[in-house]
């Protein structure tokens, strides 16, 4: 069983730290957080061409993380691969002992750095969960038997501030039906929104990690001008605290803020763990953990 699954099952409040596969093959930056933080972190999240920007393969990065002695959480989008490729990558992950998988639709290609690439979306995130469950049960999506089936701990995304909320709840229901083991939320800065969402969700069998994020100066400025267009919001007190500082300062203050949010989420039991997005930078991650008293 993966450490993440074990921590979730045991109510141990896992912390998953997101690292960034490089655009290139220089691994120093990506692997730096592993040495520094491995003891304090349950697993390392590995984005899959995040924001549709081409990076080193998440599957390869997950293996590198594993070889360096840490546990990876492999993000897998439906954007770049058809069902054959998704399934064979899942089998590859299974054979390498990479258990933690997060299924996502994936940001659309036109938002990334290869806007003329063909968007695939042969499966959606619900169907990808079903595919993975099928592999675990010993057959592929065409119904053909496997020689040896993989073991996974399957995650999916939910959006606490979705507006409208009802279509999102339908999707969550389908993800549950497809056999998700845990959820990870979109970034959250406004804990009141998280409280409301938790109430709305009701008592859940399935665990979820709340995402805390170190915001970029650019994003804070957009919020200050009422131009913030994201699936999460920056409440006024956050904008007030961070706006007007130079970008480096915003990151440092943002890391302290993310740490405080982490602590509060843990203390109030607003989630079963956290997923931390700190630009893949070890200094910021350390700062988040320090501020969280972790």
């Amino acid at each position, binding site marked *: 069983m993966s450490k993440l699954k074990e921590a979730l099952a045991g109510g141990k409040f896992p912390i998953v730290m997101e690292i960034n596969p490089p655009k290139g093959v220089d691994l120093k930056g990506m692997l730096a957080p592993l040495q520094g933080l491995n003891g304090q972190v349950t697993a390392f999240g590995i984005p899959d061409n995040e924001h549709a920007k081409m990076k080193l393969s998440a599957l390869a990065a997950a293996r590198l993380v594993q070889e360096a002695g840490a546990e990876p959480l492999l993000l897998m989008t439906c954007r770049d691969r058809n069902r054959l490729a998704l399934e064979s990558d899942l089998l590859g992950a299974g054979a390498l002992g990479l258990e933690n998988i997060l299924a996502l639709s994936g940001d659309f290609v036109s938002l990334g750095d290869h806007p003329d690439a063909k968007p695939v979306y042969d499966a959606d995130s619900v169907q990808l969960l079903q595919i993975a469950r099928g592999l675990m049960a010993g057959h592929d999506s065409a119904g053909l038997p496997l020689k040896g089936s993989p073991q996974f701990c399957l995650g999916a995304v939910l959006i606490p501030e979705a507006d409208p909320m009802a279509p999102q709840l*339908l*999707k969550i229901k389908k993800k549950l039906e497809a056999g998700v083991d845990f959820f990870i939320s979109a970034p959250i800065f406004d804990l009141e929104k998280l409280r409301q969402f938790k109430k709305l969700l009701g008592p859940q069998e399935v665990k979820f990690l709340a995402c805390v994020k170190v915001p970029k100066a650019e994003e804070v400025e957009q919020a200050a001008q009422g131009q913030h267009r994201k699936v999460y919001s920056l409440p006024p007190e956050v904008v007030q605290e961070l706006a007007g500082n130079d970008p480096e300062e915003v990151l440092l203050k943002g890391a302290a803020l993310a740490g405080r949010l982490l602590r509060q989420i843990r203390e109030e039991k607003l989630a079963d763990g956290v997923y931390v997005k700190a630009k893949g930078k070890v200094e910021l991650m350390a700062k988040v953990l320090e501020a969280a008293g972790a």
Partner: protein
Amino acid sequence: MIIAERKPFAEIKDAVAPYEKVLVVGCGTCVAVCLAGGEKEVGLLASQLKLARGQNGKASQIGEITVERQCDLEFIRPLSETVAAYDAVISTACGAGVQFLAALPEMKPVFPALNTTFIGVNEEAGFYTERCRACHQCYLGLTGGICPRTMCPKGLLNGPCGGNIRGKCEVNPDRACAWCEIYAKLEGEGRLGLIEAILPLHAHGRSTTPGTVIHPAYKRRYGAHE
């Protein structure tokens, strides 16, 4: 109907530059309605070509003709004779029409004047939007008449992605999120039950190109399996 846009004039002009006598063939159906390749547009393109060639001091002959539909043999067959007097043909039909024309016996080299864009509707004068990707498995009965494969850029079948913001699509914030619209429509009609079940993976095998449809009444004639 099929929507198309005219190619930039320079591209068309350059494509037929080596030919002295050029026939512009219009199509009177979809592309006439979307103001891209009907009789009027053929006239316009022919005058542009004459003017440009005149300026280059090149002797040339530009002919015009518009048929009812270029995707129908009945209407294009006579063109095999018409083109005898020309060196090349420009078709202002959609891609299907251009190909059907090009395959006629005795045809001269054919060049497209349009970029064929999508299957869509005429929202208002001069304003066309896409509606269907011809996916061979229509889901509209389940999705309140809003196409999840076309109106959602990701073609998702089981509800919205996480990217919509206040009901707007992550790909283009000027557009509604198709899945938010599908949900609202079915909710309003008390028919949400239709989208509760998980839809399976789409059968792309059916849409392996080039597709063929044989009307049931004609299956015997074409030796197709019942």
